[in-house]
Structures are given as C-alpha cells and as structure tokens.
C-alpha cells in the first residue's frame, strides 16, 4: 500500500470516528445546525420539548420578529427575568390551553420554526 493511500485512509477513518463521537454526545448535549437566532435559543435547556410546545403557538410571528422581541425581553435579566416580568405584568399566552409566560411561548415558537 502506498504511503499516500495509507494516510488518506487513516484520515478518513479518523474523521468518521470523530463524527461518530460528536453524534454520540447528542445523548448528553443536543447539537443543532447553526441559526441566526442561536443567541436567543441558547436560553432553552430542552429545545425539543420547547419546539413541541411551540408548534402549537397560534399566530406566531416570523422567526426574525420573534427573535427581535425575545432579544429585547431577555436583554436585562435573561429568561428568568423575562419570565418573572411577564408573570408580574400578566403577560400570559395560552398554548393549547396551557397558561404560560409570554416569553416561554415566544421562545418555544421560535424553537419550533428553526
């Protein structure tokens, strides 16, 4: 076997193992394709559950609009702060009847759209 072929083979095998390992860690930390909204979506611990809920948010705006609203809401104190403000101000959204803070509904809707 030529040396060049050997190196190519080892490199390919290494890449395959690395890719496999990366997928394996999905069991612990989900990996998603990059989006223009990752700064906002980073507030979600479980994006899949959020997306399941978010798919049921009625009349959700386009992702750009949702992200812009969320950036404003999350800016001062993150998601916990935004949620607290929503609850105090009575900014609640019903998602299939579930009464949730508006920020949670918007974030979930965004997760469902990307």
């Amino acid at each position: 076997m030529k040396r060049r072929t050997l190196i190519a083979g080892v490199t390919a095998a290494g890449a395959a193992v690395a890719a496999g390992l990366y997928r394996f860690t999905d069991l612990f930390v989900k990996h998603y394709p990059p989006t223009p909204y990752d700064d906002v979506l980073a507030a979600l611990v479980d994006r899949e559950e959020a997306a399941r809920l978010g798919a049921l948010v009625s009349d959700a705006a386009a992702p750009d609009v949702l992200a812009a609203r969320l950036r404003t809401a999350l800016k001062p104190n993150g998601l916990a702060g935004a949620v607290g403000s929503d609850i105090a101000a009575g900014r609640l959204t019903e998602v299939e009847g579930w009464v949730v803070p508006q920020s949670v509904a918007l974030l979930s809707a965004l997760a469902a759209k990307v």
Partner: protein
Amino acid sequence: MTAFIDARTLPSGTVLEPDLAIIGGGPAGISLALALASTKLNILLLESGGLNFDPASQKMYAGSQSGLSYIALDAGRLRYLGGGTNHWGGWCRPMDEVDFEARPWLPHSGWPFPRKALEPYYPRAQALVEAGPWIYDQKGDTENAAEGSVLPLGKGGLYTSWFQFSKMRGDVLPTQFGKRYEAELKRATNIKPLLHANITAIRLSPDARRVEKLEGATLGSNGGAGNRFTVKPRFVVLAAGGMENARLLLASNDVMKTGVGNQNDLVGRFFADNPVPRDVATVVSFAGPLAPFYGSNQTLNDGAIMRATFAPTAAFCRSAQVLGSLSTIEQPVELDETGKAAVITTAIALGVDASNAKARSLGCGMELAPDPDRRLVLTDEKDALGLPRLKLNMRIADEDFARYRRTLVELGRQLLATRTGMLRIDKKNRDDWMKTMDWGHHHLGTTRMHADPKQGVVDADGLVHGLGNLYIAGSSTFPSYSASNPTLNLIALTLRLADHLKKVVA
C-alpha cells in the same frame, strides 16, 4: 307534644286560623318554624308532601323548558318534609361581602343590606345544618395544618378558601331537615305541622293590600283533588322553593291580574342556578401531590368536615369584573405529550424541578349574572290540583363563561408566580363548557329582593311589595346569587326574617 296532622284526615271545608302560616316544609320553612317555636304565635306549617317521597306528589313539580338544556323541573327538588335537604350534598360556605355589593358593571346586582346584616344569624344557621365549628377561610388553614400545607398562591386574585359539610351519619346523607327536626317540631306546642297540605291559591283582599286566605287541597286517591280546606292567617310566609314560590304567586291572579306581587312583571324572572362544569382545567403541582384536603373531604378531630377550594378575592372580583366561583381539585390526570412539553419547558424557565409533577382536573361551581329573561312562566297545562305548570326559559351568557375564564387565567398566573405549578384551561368554546355541564340544583332569584318595588318582588325584610302580611323566605329572594351553596345562607336569611316577624306579628 303536637303530632303531625295529615291534611287528608281533615273534614272537607275545614278553616284554620293561625297567626302565621308557613307554606313549605323545606330548610327555610322548618328553620323559620323552629326559630319561632318559643313564641306565643300560633303557627301552621303547611307541607305539600308527607314524611317520605311520593311519586304522585312529586309529579306536581313537572314542567317544561325552552332554551338551554337544563334538569327536568321535577328532578332538582323534592316535595316532602325537608324539601331539598332530602337530597343535598351538605356543602356549606357563607356568602362573601362582595356578593352583597351593587357592582356598577353588573346590572341588577346588589342586596338591600350588606353581609354584616346576616352575620348574627350564621352561627345558628351553621348549627341547624350541623356543619360543626365555624372555621371557614383562614381559620381553616390552621385547623387543617396537620393534613398538609395550603398551596401558596402569593398575592393575587385567588386564595384557598374552605367548604364545610353538613354532618354525615355513617353512610347517611347530610342533615335532612324533615327527619332531623321532626321531633323538635312535634315538641313545639305552638307549631302545627300539616302534611299533604297543598296550597293552591293565595287570595287577596279586594284592595290587594293583604292576604285574606289561602286555599288548600290534598291529593285524592283518584289522582285529582281530595279534601279542600282554607287557611285564614294573620301573616303568611311563602317558603316553597325558588320555583314553587313564583308559581304560586303567578297562579294567584284573581285580584292582581298578573299575579300576586307581580305588578312590575318581576315574579319568575331572574331565575338562576349555580352551573357546575366538570373538568374545566388541569392543575399541575410541580412538587408532587397537593395536600389531601384539596381533593377530598377531610374530617377533623372536632368533627368538622372540610374541603379546600380556590375562591376569588373581593378585590379581584371588583377589578377584573368577575363573579363568584369556587374551583375544586378533582381527579388525577395523565398529561399528554403537549402537557409534558409545557410542564418541562415552563418549569425549566422558572428554574424549578418538575420531575415529581402531578396533574389533577379542576371542577367548579359558578355564579351567573342576573338575567331577567332567564325566567319561569305559567303554561296552560295543569297539575292534579288545577295549578298551572311552569315553563323555564334557561340561558347562560357567553360573558358568564368569559368571566370565569379570567379567574382561571389568574389562578394560572399565581401558580407561575409562586413557582408551584401551572394550569391548562380545558374549555375552548361554549360547546366545550356545555359538554361537561352539571348544575347545583339551586333555584334562585325568582322573587328577588330590592328596596325599590320596580326592581324587586320583596323588600329587605322579605315582605312582598304592596302587601302587608305576605313574606317570602328562601333563595328565591336572592337578588344576586354568589357561588356559595345557598342552603346555609338562605337559612341565615330566614332566621333574620324570624327576628323581624317576632316584632311585627307579635
């Protein structure tokens, strides 16, 4: 001791002349008679039924309906001594201060007196229904502390309030007034209980200022009228229930052509009941099961039977323009995938652990807004004694549901604010509400109380406007209704009437 008299044994044409005739031997009539037992008044307590259920007598309650589907008119009440207490569930709770208020946003609201006027009568009413010591509201929190903690709801529109229950005797239903107070009625030498005695007409003086006499009849064995008798009382209290009070007034139309007390077309209007929709919401408690007193009755060491309920505060009722509602935790619920997603996503956002979360359904007893077109009218069909039968036009406004929905949203908000749980509203539209609709079987409002004769059938003392000696007792006089079950409250109101009668009749 005075034995009960069976009116069927009276010679036909008998004339009885008591100081006071009480028409109806239900909780109002019996409470009134007992409250006047120590007086010198000669009292005739007229009960249309006997001591037990009788199908022929019960059939006289039958009527027809239009509008919203409702319970058959002969199904939600019982025509024998004890009346509605023969099938009640024993749920007791005093009405709230706000229930008595005239609220500008709620047409026809407002009692002619505040709750304070009833408060002296609640202890005796509580004793009559045998609901144990008075530990409603905050006192209930401490009394039940051994069973668990009250769900912290923080500052907001709802709080944990309490029902108390009429005493059970083994498997026997709560206090049935006929059986429970039979001996006391017999012991009272000034009370003459007359059974199987149906009043078929209230006859007024020609000037329509006083009741001159009552016409009575028994049911004959042939299915028609048996004996006929006459009562000539000095005073009359009509205490025959929310439907029958209106029926007898409307049917007695020889002098006042629209019926007794109906000069302003109010008798029979404003009928109400407490809607009891099931499965209105799902409540999730993040930390696991709620204390047992939320989901079932708890018997305390002092004998009180209690159950927690979520009630709106007076401030929330006023600011959010909602009516009374009493929401109770019911059955365990398995969450679907959407429910799990909602709980996981929301709990994480709140920074709480929901791995032990439990879900239960929520039921409710609601209050309806007063509605003059929810009404009872007479029909051409007659019962066995010739009294016209009733027809009920039943309605619920969309706004009634919308108001309660606002209350549920506020409960959901408070659960989130205290990071204790969350809530799903399970009703999307009117059809959803009606699918699981039950009723309290509480007949309210048909002879409403108001100081102004143009707005009420009776005045603040229960006296029929324009008449000098006809009073009405019971929940038919409630001008607005509350979500609290009426029995305890109507008894307190009746005891207030008894005090008034002691002065007036004596």
